[in-house]
């Protein structure tokens, strides 16, 4: 029986058979628990968010960034992406988490907890003397509080939210808006440049690491033990979730843990 029995239950109410797979499932986490805490295979979006949130090394950035989670990282924690998307949408609608567009890759979105974002923006802009505090507060109240989109057009800003041209200029200067197109802006996390820099460096480094391995594949455990270059501050497990979720590598279950193989 080499065929994986992780398939849907076609006959309904199948009893759990204590086969080879079941046993390894029970033993696997226990063994690993001794060394480190690992995510359980299936979890909901909230738990996944929390897990990834804790994975983000805030101290490495000296508190200059809120924990930023990439949306596709969540996909590495659950096989059912559709369900995850739905749960995530609910969380976003509740306003607990904000979606941001960082970088140029389409379909790549970042998530930041709304409260942490507000705090971060206040802290960040307090150092800027030429941006009036009222504009920032207005932005946080209106743009972050009421509207849930990742981008705003000039129409939205002026007519619906009641911003002035010079206020928009100030927000842009403070890094809260980033240019998307003529008359349209992405909402942005101020200081996200440092994040993007280390994120892209780290991703490149980890992919290179896997590429250099024999058959372009490596055990996840083995990869976790390796070190990333200094410029990539985010930590190896953060990047592992990133490359799995972005479908840059594929996961293969083996008897000695997860194997990551480069997709080409």
């Amino acid at each position, binding site marked *: 029986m080499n*065929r994986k029995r992780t*398939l*849907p239950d*076609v*006959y*309904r*109410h199948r009893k759990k058979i204590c086969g080879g797979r079941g046993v390894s499932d029970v033993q696997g986490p226990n063994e690993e628990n001794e060394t480190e805490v690992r995510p359980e295979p299936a979890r909901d979006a909230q738990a996944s968010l929390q897990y990834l949130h804790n994975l983000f090394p805030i101290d490495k950035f000296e508190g200059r960034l809120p924990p930023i989670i990439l949306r596709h990282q969540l*996909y590495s924690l659950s*096989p*059912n*992406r*559709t*369900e*995850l*998307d*739905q749960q995530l949408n609910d969380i976003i609608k509740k306003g607990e988490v904000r979606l941001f567009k960082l970088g140029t890759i*389409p*379909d790549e979105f970042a998530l930041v907890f709304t409260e942490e974002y507000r705090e971060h923006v206040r802290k960040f802009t307090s150092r800027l003397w030429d941006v009036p505090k009222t504009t920032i507060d207005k932005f946080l109240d209106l743009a972050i509080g009421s509207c849930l*989109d*990742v*981008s*705003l*057009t000039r129409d*939205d800003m002026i007519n619906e939210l009641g911003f002035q041209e010079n206020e928009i200029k100030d927000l842009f200067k403070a890094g809260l808006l980033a240019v*998307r*197109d003529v*008359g*349209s802006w992405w909402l942005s996390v101020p200081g996200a440049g440092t994040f993007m820099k280390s994120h892209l460096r780290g991703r490149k480094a980890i992919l290179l690491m896997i590429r250099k391995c024999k058959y372009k594949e490596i055990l996840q455990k083995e990869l976790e033990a390796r070190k990333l270059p200094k410029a990539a501050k985010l930590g190896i497990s953060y990047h592992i979730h990133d490359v799995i979720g*972005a*479908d840059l590598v594929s996961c293969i279950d083996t008897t000695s843990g997860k194997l990551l193989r480069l*997709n080409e």
Partner: protein
Amino acid sequence: MIRCLEERSSGLLLPTGVQQAVSTDRALAMQLSKQRDVEKVHTTPINSLDLDPVEMRYLISGASNGTIAIHDLHNVTGQPQYTCPLLCTVDRCSQHAHKYSVETVQWYPADSGMFVSSSFDKTLKVWDTNTLVPVETVACRERVYCHRLSKIATKHCLIAVASSLSQVNLVDLKSGSYSHILKGHKGAVYVVDWSPQNEYVLASGSSDNKALMWDVRMAKNCIFTLDQHNGDATRCGPHAVQTAHNGAVNGLRFTADGLYLVSFGTDCRVRLWRTDNGQNMLVNYGAINNVHEKCLSIDVSSSLNPEIVFVPHDSNIDMLCLHTGTKLQRLVGHYNDCNTLVYHPFHQELYSGGNDRNIIAWLPKTASSDDYQEHLKETKLKKGTSRETKKKGANVNLMQDTWSSDED
């Protein structure tokens, strides 16, 4: 399984329930078949496959050099080991053959006596299967990427033709010429498919990232454009048009009940749409590589419990759950990119063709096929007696010792 049968006997389960469960189990156990292969004929990449809709017996294939071949899939030898024989070919050298790559071949839905092929040589040919001579040749102005006949049509016999002309042409078989043109795309149309529910409804996908749904009786415009953001304009930018994908749409397939449409684009995404209002179901299937600038066939199973979508992913075939988007299986076997595949709904088999010039049969792995493999191994060991077992053929009970012990 036993519980399933028990429930059936007590009337808790509908008769179709058992059928569904068994066929789903079979479909999920699909793997590269050790027992069946398809006779090799093609010397160039295979672009299109189709099963005849009446008996699901004859497999037609079209290749890049203009060759069309027909194989017989029915195994009447009584032996599990079977090579599907070639019945006939339209060879490249034949005067009737297409000059350039055959992009699509399709059987006439009501009868296997006729099939239609289209090619990059800007023609669409209607063939008589028995004589292998085209009875009708329709000249198109541009390269034809795909054509489709409606499988349920009773009131019309239109062939929808997708070409690089940025419009869908409808060819009427009755007159052998264009009946009308559907305008709406701005780039080459890569793929079309008729709805299996409504004979007048047609979907088309194009290189301008759009997928449109048409009613061929409507003179004015398409019914609706499929919009990946469901009308949420801020996601696609201020000046954006409604698009189905962020890349060319080169695979389209209706589900067997006609309620959903699956689309595949060069942005490496598969999307599921409702066909009544064009809503994106937002099923996330993950990234599936797709770089082909031509029609790529995907297929959807019918009457299984979680319905399965078969999507070519480079040289592999991914089996995805239609409604949840989870990856169920990956079929690994081709040596090069897979271009086309066709699902056999009666026997839960899959046939696929690709750039490695092979047609591969994917069959469910069953207990009896395992036993047969073991049986083969054992007979190989006992060489002298193997001939005897072959002779008996159909009557062989696989579980029984049938060889004599002369040698011992």
